[in-house]
């Protein structure tokens, strides 16, 4: 019973919320509203997918919000060379942060929470230094095109499928889960544990940078001081609510997407029924606790 609840609880909750809104919320089932909900959750989904991979290796990545800020800061610097070089540089910046995170975890043997905490603090600082602490308007039409709802939603959907395939159909995916399940055993079995860890943190950095680029295009401005703040919390929440245990060895891709959707719908429901943000936060806290309480039975 507990196992079923952990595995399918998030889908049931999403279905219940959808049903509730369809009946009690005016104009909920309109295309415009549904599109807004999906666009708003897309960056969270991207970051949460990377976070799910890292959590699958029994790690955590607190630096994702700062990586988004760094990507946002880097993009306008290289727009002169065209939109794709600029996006590539932003992704490279994210991958670099991921590489540093991964090296500290895999080679030095630091606890993920400290290693990525250092980059949470330093990353946003670097972003602000790069951007000179200023907000920059984005006028490049090609970049702004990346912020259109259809593009943002499609990107998130494609990436979710790619991550799922990578996890379930490639050697790397199986190795990742093995490392998270029992690192010592994976090591003894001859898996390249260090390389797997580094690749995972780099992937997480890449996805966070992509989220930063898309969010910047949507905002039509590069705002490294505020973009992605507390994103690590939203991403971890989506992953945990989606049924991925923090103890590693399992990753639920679809669950993570559903977790992000659940938190988005919850917030939208509370807002549309004129409940204040404070209530939304307290409800969110309660849901996180319920989700980990349900997950507890299996992980012990």
């Amino acid at each position, binding site marked *: 019973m507990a196992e079923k609840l952990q595995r399918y609880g998030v889908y049931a909750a999403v279905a219940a919320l959808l049903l509730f809104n369809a009946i009690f919320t005016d104009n909920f089932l309109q295309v415009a509203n549904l599109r807004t909900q999906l666009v708003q959750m897309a960056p969270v989904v991207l970051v949460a997918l990377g976070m799910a991979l890292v959590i699958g290796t029994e790690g955590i990545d607190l630096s994702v919000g700062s990586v988004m800020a760094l990507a946002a800061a880097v993009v306008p610097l290289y727009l002169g060379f065209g939109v794709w070089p600029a996006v590539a540089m932003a992704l490279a910046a994210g991958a670099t942060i991921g590489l540093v995170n991964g090296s500290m975890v895999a080679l030095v043997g*630091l606890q993920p929470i400290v290693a990525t905490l*250092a980059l949470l*603090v330093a990353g946003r600082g670097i972003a602000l230094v790069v951007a000179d602490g200023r907000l920059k308007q984005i006028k490049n039409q090609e970049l702004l095109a990346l912020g259109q709802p259809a593009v943002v939603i499609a990107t998130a959907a494609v990436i979710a499928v790619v991550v799922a395939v990578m996890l379930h159909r490639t050697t790397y995916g199986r190795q990742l889960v093995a490392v998270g399940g029992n690192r010592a055993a994976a090591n003894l079995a001859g898996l390249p544990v260090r390389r797997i860890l580094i690749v995972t943190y780099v992937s997480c950095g890449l996805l966070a940078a992509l989220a930063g680029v898309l969010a910047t295009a949507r905002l039509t401005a590069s705002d490294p001081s505020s973009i992605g703040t507390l994103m690590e919390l939203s991403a*971890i*929440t989506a992953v945990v609510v989606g049924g991925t245990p*923090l103890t590693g060895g399992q990753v639920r891709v679809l669950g993570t997407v559903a977790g992000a959707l659940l938190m988005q719908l919850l917030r939208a429901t509370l807002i549309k029924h004129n409940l*204040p943000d*404070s209530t939304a936060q307290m409800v969110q806290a309660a849901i996180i*606790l319920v989700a980990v309480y349900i997950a507890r039975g299996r992980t012990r």
Partner: protein
Amino acid sequence: MTVPADAVSGRRELVAGFVQRHGALAVLALSVVTASLVFESFASFDNASGIAIQSSFLVIVAIGMTFVIICGGIDLSVGSVFALGGVLAAYASRWGTLPALVVPLAVCGAIGLLNGVLIARLRLAPFIVTLASLLGARGLLLSITDEGASTYLVPRESSFVEIGRGTLWGLGYPVFLALALAALAGLVLQRSRFGQSIFAIGGSQDAAAMMGVPVARMKVLTYTLSGLLAGLAGTLNAARLGSGVTILGVGLELDAIAAVVIGGTLLIGGAGTISGTLSGVLLLGVIQNVINQIGNLGSSYQLVTSGAFLAVVVVVQTYLSRTQRLH
């Protein structure tokens, strides 16, 4: 040349242990000396007392965090609890000084207690429980301040502000309180049953339980203490500012964790000192001060330096503790 291998490894182990325990203090001393030589205005009493008062709130929070981390946990909620404590204190100060102290401590202590019960009794992960209470406490704060729109002021004639603004020998009261608490916490940690229990729990929870340490009760106590201290720091800050500022405390948990880790406390639990934490907090304070002295460097450089410091310290620590463990 024949130097016994044991002697060499023994000496290396000794050095490694010393650096790990007192590294933060050495770096602090070095930074202070360098800063005094480079910046004329650094080595003045006014500047030093400024650093002291600004650091005193973080010291109080970091003491609680030290206890939590030594017992093998983490408390991410302290930033929100700090802000909540300040708002409650400012709100309650209309009824007098005593309520302004008791109300925030009671609420923040209750949040810590809730954290502790969920972690110790229900065995939920500390990281995620305190993450939830980070959100919950911030939500509570918003709900009592009309979604952050109203800032409660401490009545002008209230004696409550004196607690935050009063000075003795040119130093603010919060500085003395923070020092007294640090001394008390050091004593509790090293010399009391409670202190020894949390070292044992952090070292090995199962072994501690088998030795008869009441693990759950000690953990609940630790998280309650952390909540209380964060609330107290928020209260003092509200007294100093004369108002309950709603946007404070975001990211304070990270500063506290950074200070504790820089101070030589191991994040895996089982080892750590209050004096190290004190050095860690002061080091962060000095870095911030130096960056302010340079003037045209923004606060973004402070983030870069603090983050880099943290990374370097933990990398060095990991190597040192590995050296110790090998022998």
